[in-house]
């Protein structure tokens, strides 16, 4: 019995998606749960798994944007006749699929073997057939993954042509130097003319939402906190790690402290939607992460209920998947507040743009030893500057200041957050 593969609704409000590429070729076997194709929504690019096992008989929409519910492929037995399904679907498939030229299949291309007994073995997917496995060291593979370098484009200098770390680093540097604007995954010679970069739907979403956010009347509040206790607390936690624990970062502690402050100042833990303010009982803290395809903000849910160790584990998982482009829509939803930390880039302080419909965002700078006056004496202490951007439609200056004051107090004495 053939099963129809339709574009699923992966999150609230998703109306359409863009098929980036198929991970299986027509004729190839696919098992339920295996990644079948890559889908670009307005929030993430993610792999979608097959919901049935069998042979991928027909890809109806090779790529392009389609509406939710559109038939995009058919999975069935190797010799199954699916022409009826295809005809029915094609007459019903909406305009979006028509808009993608590649989505219009030629009827004669429908691969329906007439003689089941003579069925050929499924052809190997095009990716595998053309791409011989690249010999690369595990370290080289990790660096390539992290820096978005295509291993197959690198000539290895290790034994037997193995790609080693040095080769990837050299390629990554050349890539950055040569084509700073091009997507990292496609190294190309320097173009002679102006290069036009089409926006991915993630990038389009970033552009649209941040432009919207810019319309909001905002104000900023700035505090500089002494981070000695924060750093010391983290060190004590690191000393007591058990095997398998993720090492907590300063950001993880900050996530926990901010979450505690949010539930004490719910005016800040809110959305501004359709002229109403929604104040939330729990703090779902979004973390701004630089992913290869652009900024994403995965959410640590119920951060006010989690231990720092639990936050560290959740953060490690989210950041890893963000960098690998494997976030799911659910990872990005329901944030009530966002932290953007550029401390690791040695940025002292900066102003973050609102992440609507949230009403506030905290921009965190680096922890450095800086001069500080204590009781009239100049001392050196590790300090950290935090800038809170508030949507004035929802928050007044005093509310923002009280929240930021609590965050500062918690940073300087983390035990107060208990």
């Amino acid at each position, binding site marked *: 019995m053939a099963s129809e593969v339709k574009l699923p609704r992966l999150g609230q409000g998703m109306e359409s998606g863009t098929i980036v590429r198929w991970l299986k070729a027509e004729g190839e076997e696919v098992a339920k749960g295996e990644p079948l194709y890559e889908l670009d929504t307005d929030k993430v690019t993610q792999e979608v798994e097959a919901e049935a096992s069998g042979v991928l008989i027909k890809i109806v929409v090779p790529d392009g944007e389609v509406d939710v519910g559109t038939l995009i492929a058919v999975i069935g037995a190797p010799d199954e006749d699916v022409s009826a399904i295809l005809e029915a679907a094609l007459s019903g498939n909406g305009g979006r699929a028509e808009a993608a030229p590649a989505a219009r299949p030629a009827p004669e291309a429908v691969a329906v073997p007439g003689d089941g007994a003579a069925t050929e073995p499924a052809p190997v997917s095009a990716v595998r057939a053309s791409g011989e496995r690249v010999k690369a060291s595990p370290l080289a*593979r990790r660096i390539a993954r992290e820096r978005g370098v295509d291993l197959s484009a690198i000539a290895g200098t290790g034994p037997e042509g193995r790609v080693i770390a040095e080769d990837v680093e050299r390629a990554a540097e050349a890539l950055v130097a040569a084509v700073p604007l091009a997507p990292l995954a496609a190294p190309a010679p320097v173009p002679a003319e102006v290069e036009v970069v089409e926006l991915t739907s993630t990038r389009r979403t970033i552009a649209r939402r941040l432009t919207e956010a810019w319309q909001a009347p905002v104000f900023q509040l700035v505090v500089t906190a002494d981070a000695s206790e924060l750093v010391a607390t983290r060190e004590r936690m690191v000393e007591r790690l058990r095997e398998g624990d993720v090492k907590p970062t300063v950001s993880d502690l900050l996530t926990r402290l901010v979450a505690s402050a949010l539930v004490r100042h719910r005016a800040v833990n809110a959305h501004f939607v359709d002229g109403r303010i929604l104040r939330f009982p729990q703090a779902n803290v979004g973390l701004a992460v630089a992913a290869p395809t652009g900024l994403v903000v995965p959410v640590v849910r119920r951060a006010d209920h989690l231990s720092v160790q639990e936050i560290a584990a959740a953060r490690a998982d989210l950041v890893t998947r963000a960098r690998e482009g494997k976030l799911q829509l659910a990872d990005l939803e329901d944030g009530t507040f966002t932290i953007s930390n550029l401390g690791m880039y040695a940025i002292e302080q900066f102003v973050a743009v609102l992440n609507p419909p949230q009403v506030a965002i905290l921009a965190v700078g680096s922890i450095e030893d800086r001069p500080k006056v204590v009781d009239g004496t100049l001392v050196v202490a590790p300090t950290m500057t935090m800038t809170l951007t508030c949507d004035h439609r929802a928050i007044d200056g005093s509310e923002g200041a009280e929240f930021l004051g609590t965050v500062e107090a918690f940073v300087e004495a983390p035990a107060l957050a208990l």
Partner: protein
Amino acid sequence: MPELTYREAVRDALAEAMQKDESVFIMGEDIAEMGGSMGVTQGLLQEFGPTRVRNTPISEAAIVGAGIGAAMQGMRPIVEIMYEDFLTLAMEQLVNQAAKHRTMSGGQLKVPLTIRTQGGAGWSPGAQHAQQLESWFVHVPGLKVVFASTPEDVRGLLWSSIYDDNPVVFFEHRTLYPIKGDVPEQLAPIPLGTARIHREGEDVTVVATGRLVHEALTAAEEAEREGISVEVVDPRTLLPLDAETIVGSVRKTTRCVTAHEAVTRGGFGAELAAVIQHGAFDWLDAPIERVGARFGPLPFAPPMEQWVVPHAEDVLEAIKRTVARG
């Protein structure tokens, strides 16, 4: 800092434990008047008398078995097995008895027994008196396994082994007895399960045990002249293993060579390689190289013996393979 030979450092740890603690005593073949076949226990009979420095019959099973009994009765015996090749005769006692009593009694019994032994090639002892069998014992839950490579380490590790409540198989290397090294003024116990970084480096980690620690240090100096920076780590305790230090080192250098005098196949280097590849997989930039003896009984003829066991040049070649270019 005083300087001791490896042999003196072993004797020093034995003597100090016996001075301090009536429950410590030693026994083994010819260890009393003769002072042991390697001269390690010379003088101890005069100092501590025949009840605490006891000669035994030529029966390794009896030596270890008596040690187990004494240990379970509250003593801290140290038994000497003249050559580690002869541990084969005491395997039943070691593997089925010593290693098992603590757990099988639900913790009611303890076996604080130290089994000192020695082995190693380099002086034509032939195939039955020079094997390196330490990896066999790493496979037995309930035992601890120590292999010390310097005077300081052998003194501090022997002390910790004597005072460990589990049976410890304590390997010494025949050719290391005469080497000299600084030791702390006061005997400093070295916890079991802590590796020692002998030399820091950036490009390759050599994890070496026993005599090969010294060969690795020589190879590292040679490599440095050729522009390769080598870190040398000695696990010192094979069981329990300080995986954190070893994996951490390889994560830093991204390449690794394991080195021991035992035959490569099924040797401790195999266990190290498995632990390292798992802990440092995404940091490895080259396959882990193993250095060990060729797979054959050790020949008596000196040139053949030298050909079979590994030396600094074998470690150096392995180091170069890890940084090789195609």
